[in-house]
């Protein structure tokens, strides 16, 4: 049984009374993230340093609370939505850039540092942190690490996992471990690689060592507009097939172009069926060569117009429309449900037309703005949840969209994560044995199931007793294992 009062007193002693909240407003505020799922918690703590995080883990364990790590709360899958007797550990006050070492191409940062703040801090030294989620003005590095965040530029640069060299993690037993290292290889299994993207279910990331990416000497941003969605999508595959991997290839359909243009006034062609924003970067000669190939691919697919950003201001404007698209859809309806799934690039057209049909069938407005180069779709359903029955239609349509993507050879999520929202879809892509193995990985880090419970894995996925299948008893199996294996 959780002893909330005792936990609160212990936390106040350890962190200071100002860093612990338990009033009803705070508990309501931290009962959800940016997803549609609402949960509940009993305490909210704001650690300022590593020792505070350790204290949070220790006190939660002592008093029977589960631990839900939270960065900026911009997650869209409910990964930071607490459930039950939860202590929400908010890392936003741990927001220092601890060290920048260009000679080693790395920086150590606390988890609450905002993605864009890091990029801005690194820019004068000629570097950046490559992952750039659309929420980069507000999302935190700790959140990026936990969701293995993407963004428009991971087509060429890779996802967050490729840019995290090491993490300092507070495990649920309050021990502190460094996974990965400043060196390119380390002793042991790649636990860093498992923690990145684990949605706060393995431990609390208290610091991250991130890779610095040199800023490209030259960048060219192009807007290509098409009279059919098919031509637009075919251009994406044609670009990749020509041997060019652009820094970013973003696709927007007409619905979202109109909304974004109303908001950002980027000069988007509102009469186009779909547009692409393509960015190529590198040395000037490479930029020139790639831009030529992109133009050729687009012309072969009947592009109507190619607009090249003339300067940084125009480039920023083209991106502003793209990155503010999710805010701009408020013009369509007060609520939206943003999807995230990945399909092979060759299936983009087929899946998109399926998405349109599903929305029509459920009488919903759908718009699409997404990372086309990665095959990472983001169908966005706009609705007004105050109208009875609407939410049910949205959820039904959402499930159909997920199934459509999986049937096309895709995956449940490209960058938002599983969280609470998609955990029950996991059996669509994984077998029972797969899910059991994943549950085993989880319990290897967190044998008592204290970290962010109910997330990622569907109910019932447990690390089973495989030794029974072998006809051995547990004691016999244990004898075969290195000393100390069973904790």
């Amino acid at each position, binding site marked *: 049984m959780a002893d909330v009062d005792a936990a609160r007193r212990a936390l106040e002693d350890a962190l200071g009374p100002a860093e612990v909240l338990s009033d009803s407003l705070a508990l309501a505020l931290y009962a959800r993230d940016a997803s549609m799922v609402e949960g509940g918690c009993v305490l909210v703590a704001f650690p300022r340093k590593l020792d505070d995080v350790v204290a949070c883990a220790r006190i939660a364990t002592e008093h029977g609370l589960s631990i839900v790590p939270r960065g900026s709360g911009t997650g869209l899958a409910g990964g930071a939505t607490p459930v039950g007797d939860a202590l929400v550990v908010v890392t936003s006050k741990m927001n220092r850039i601890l060290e920048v070492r260009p000679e080693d191409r790395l920086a150590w940062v606390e988890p609450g540092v905002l993605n864009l703040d890091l990029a801005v801090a690194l820019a004068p030294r000629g570097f950046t942190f490559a992952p750039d989620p659309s929420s980069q003005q507000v999302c935190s590095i700790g959140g990026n690490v936990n969701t293995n965040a993407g963004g428009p530029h991971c087509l060429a640069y890779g996802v967050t996992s490729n840019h995290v060299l090491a993490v300092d993690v507070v495990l649920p037993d309050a021990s502190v471990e460094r996974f990965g290292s400043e060196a390119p290889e380390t002793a042991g299994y790649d*636990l860093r690689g498992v923690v990145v993207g684990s949605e706060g279910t393995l431990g609390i990331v208290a610091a991250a060592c991130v890779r610095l990416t040199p800023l490209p000497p030259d960048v060219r941003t192009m807007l290509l507009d098409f009279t059919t969605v098919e031509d637009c999508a075919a251009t994406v595959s044609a670009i990749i097939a020509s041997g060019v991997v652009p820094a970013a290839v973003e696709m927007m359909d007409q619905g979202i172009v109109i909304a974004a243009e109303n908001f950002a006034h980027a000069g988007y062609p509102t009469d186009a069926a779909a547009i692409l924003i393509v960015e190529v970067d590198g040395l000037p000669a490479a930029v020139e060569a790639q831009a030529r190939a992109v133009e050729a691919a687009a012309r072969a697919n009947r592009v109507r117009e190619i607009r090249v950003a003339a300067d940084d201001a125009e480039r920023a404007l083209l991106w502003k429309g793209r990155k503010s698209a999710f805010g701009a859809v408020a013009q369509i309806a007060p609520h939206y449900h943003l999807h995230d799934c990945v399909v092979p690039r060759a299936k983009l057209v087929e899946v998109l037309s399926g998405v349109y049909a599903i929305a029509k069938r459920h009488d919903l407005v759908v718009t699409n703005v997404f*990372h086309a180069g990665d095959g990472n779709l983001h169908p966005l359903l706009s609705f007004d949840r105050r109208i009875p029955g609407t939410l049910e239609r949205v959820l039904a349509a959402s499930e159909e969209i997920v199934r459509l993507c999986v049937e096309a050879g895709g995956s449940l999520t490209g960058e938002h994560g599983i969280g609470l929202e998609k955990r029950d879809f996991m059996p669509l892509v994984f077998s029972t044995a797969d899910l059991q193995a994943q549950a085993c990985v989880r319990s290897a880090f967190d044998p008592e199931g204290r970290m962010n419970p109910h997330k990622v894995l569907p109910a019932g996925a447990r690390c089973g007793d495989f030794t029974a299948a*072998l006809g051995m008893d547990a004691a016999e199996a244990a004898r075969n294992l290195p000393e100390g294996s069973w904790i």
Partner: protein
Amino acid sequence: MDLIHPFTKAEVIDAMRDASVRGRRVLVVGGRRHMDKGEPCEIDAEVWTTQLDQLVSYEPAEMVAVVEAGMRVGELERLLAEGDQEWPCDAPPEATVGGVIAAGSSSPRRLRVGPLRDTVLEAEVVTGDGRLIRSGARTVKNVTGYDLHKLVAGSLGTLGVIVQVALKVRPRPPARRTIRVPGGLEAGRRLLEAVPGPAAVLATPDVVEVRLEGWPEEVEQQAQAAWRVAAALDATEGEPFPSVRPWEDRPVVAEAAVPPSGLPDLLEAAGDAWGALVGVGLAWVGLDSADGPLDALRARARALGGIAPVIRGPGGLGEARPAALDVHRRLKAAFDPAGVLAPGRFWGGI
């Protein structure tokens, strides 16, 4: 010692189930290129993966190739060349895809292409007790579930038998050039600073090789930058890369990994048979024996926050303990409950 030579995944499953029930310890073997890596371990049988060598699917426009793990690297190279693409591992052609992944080796071009483990998008693995499990997806981007495939990359066959992988492949660079400049690490450092985006700066005691890749115009621009540094020196240009491997003719080769700025300290007293990837922090050090000089190298690597496992000859992995040893042990117990997969080969006695 027995030899198990499965032709199908089902046969791998049967073999591992049987090995676990009978307590028969096995070593998973691909192209025998990484046999020396790891601590010595006693085994009763070898499981050869080399008959699991089929191409499952390859779509150049997706930049994803799915292959069985026993496929030889040379065969994969040939298949990908048809799509004008590559899997940047730069391993010998007789190595297997699964072996290269399990050994955790990386390309000398890592500065540009990244670590090899980042290219593994999906893996199918048969656990020590014969369960077939899959993680990841055949898309270039995916965050569905825990990345078990990250764990098996570099696991030296101690968690399971990798039977199939989906690999992220990349376009073959249309132009490649290699410039050789006299000098050692310091020359390497200057070249790394001067040349934008090289694929590799490989420094050896006497010569630095700068590998350039990309679009022809881009490579020309990089080459001009390199030649500006090299002009005063007696530089040359030409294939192949790497052409200078002074560590290769020594009986013991260690692969040290330290933060990039630690390379000068690491190699200060490391003899004259080394090569280092400047800007990456990997160094291959050739030694005459696995005694004193290896201990000294490991002590320096440790002081710099790194490691120095042996990849050829005797010497094992070294004393470094993995972080969270209990987590490691629980993972091993979950994937190989009977403890039959190369027991003791891995770091920390796992």
